[in-house]
């Protein structure tokens, strides 16, 4: 595929490209915080349920303390999401300009 020149022009698309210059997409929040938050909450709730599970519940799950395990896994996953976001914050998206090297 050659790199020369621009794709074919179309008025509707050009208008949309023009409008995109005032895009507010850069204000979009970071999704990792939401996923992390929800899973930490789920992890805490389900782990606590697991700690207090009765024999009947454990028997129902074929002897596996599934609430405890699932809760802990969700908690760890949630924390990892938050850690990822904290360690590597999102670079602001700049769709119209080329970004210099970081």
């Amino acid at each position, binding site marked *: 595929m050659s790199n020369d020149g621009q794709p074919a022009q179309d008025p*509707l698309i050009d208008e949309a490209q023009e409008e995109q210059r005032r895009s507010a997409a850069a204000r979009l929040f970071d999704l990792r915080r939401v996923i992390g938050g929800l899973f930490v909450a789920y992890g805490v709730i389900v782990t606590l349920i697991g700690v207090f599970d009765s024999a009947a519940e454990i028997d129902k799950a074929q002897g596996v303390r*599934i609430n405890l395990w*699932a809760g802990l896994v969700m908690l760890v996953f949630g924390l990892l999401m938050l850690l990822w976001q904290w360690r590597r914050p999102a670079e602001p998206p700049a769709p119209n300009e080329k970004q210099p090297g970081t």
Partner: protein
Amino acid sequence: MDGDGLRLNMNGLDYLILALYFVTVLGVGIAARRAIRTSVDFFLSGRSLPAWVTGLAFVSANLGALEIIGMAANGAQYGVMTVHYYWIGAVPAMVFLGIVMMPFYYGSKVRSVPEYLRLRFNRPTHLLNALSFAVAQVLIAGVNLYALALVMQALLGWPLWTAIVVGAAIVLAYITIGGLSGAIYNEVLQFFVILAGLIPVTVIGLVKVGGVNGLMDAVRDSKLGEAGLHAWQDTGSTANPLGAQWIGIVFGLGFVLSFGYWTTNFAEVQRALSAKNMSAARRTPIIAAYPKLFIPLVTVIPGLVALVTVKGLGAESGDLQYNNAIPLLMRDLLPNGVLGVAVTGLLASFMAGMAANVSGFNTVFTYDIWQAYIRRDRPDDYYVRVGRWATVAAVVVGIGTAFIAAGFSNIMNYIQALFSVFNAPLFATFIIGMFWKRMTALAGFWSLLLGTLVSLSLYLLYKGGVIDFNSDLEESFWGAGLAFVTAVVVAAIITPLTAPKRDAELRGLVYGMGGVDLKGDVLAGDAVWYRSPVLLGVIAVALAALFYIPVF
């Protein structure tokens, strides 16, 4: 296992987990609102999203109602052969979309799949595709909604209409407010919640049957028998659970149906168009291919577990239909707590599927029908408003079609078959148009129209009893194949008789015409080898082939 009643024993904590999810989903929609100023923000997330987000949304958009419930049902009914829907029926097409087709979609800056047809061919082709896509999305959204309501009714005892209205209202709210960003962000969240719901069912199911070896032994003793554990072994004839020969699986499912669905379905492609640059757009379907490789673990395995543990599974009607494989396991195996997560996961999957249809619809309706044919040259804000109203309309009509769907017992199979057949001629038209620059605008129109009519006629003749096939599946293989051939033949006949488009008009749209810049908008870090679309794609296809070895 008393077999009667699917009702789950949900307690307050389970409902707390469900409520937390609803609040989060709505919060995501509201928080995404501040990132919307232009129509491109509303319909394409301002083309700003990173590849992992669009990739997970891409796979999540496909993890709808029919997918999870239906693939577990197929697992119970057809056994391991169900993996064909993933490893040959999805992964190669997703990789092809990313490597070969995405440069034309993303590079030409089209805002939708129908818009590509307008640039490559002409306005009639565009309008035909825009209209059929819009109608299909609303119908499928209705079927998703109805499936959601059925499950909620069975599991939680909610009345049908309450479940339909609640499900619709939440999806409506977060898409109307948050636009495509609201939909995509929630799809990624839903992806993880769906997995969090399905993994415990799978793990405990496996523990119950004594691990993978125990499951294999039990399947050998079940009504599927040894054949239920093999994907390819008996495909020399139709004497296998799926009733399909290898040639039908490879060309019908693996090529025409799968490429038709994954490469031209705007509800999917839209996720990639919202990526922040060419590299991210190309990686979107390829990143999605990796989870897709593993999803059979949490659908087919629960299906098989249900087959061997739920006595009487496979009834024609009632609680023991194959479709209830996963709900039955949830009822029998999950204690409160993970039960709430699993129910939330099921709900999340319905919402992901429906949101994909609705956000695909509002974009095509606004850009490809309203702006192109009804109200041109209005300010950009006007089209954002149209998009919001189109969302409301889609959901309201979706509720209507959900109630129509409620009147038919088997409509989901029919609609799936019908629309999978619609995709085949579209794919043929695309693939010829993308690689043969001589193909003319008129040829594009007639290929699409006649291809669709041929597959539709075959379907109607089959339903009317005039032509006979072994199964619905076989009919859809043949319908798709015939539609594909028709489109090719029509293109070959009409093209020489009509005037070609000028080369300048085809730049960036057709292979070999130039105008596609794969590197121009590249971000720092995208050049590293592990972000190469081609490398990632080749590994995904190789893994799909490898995964077949233990279940050959």
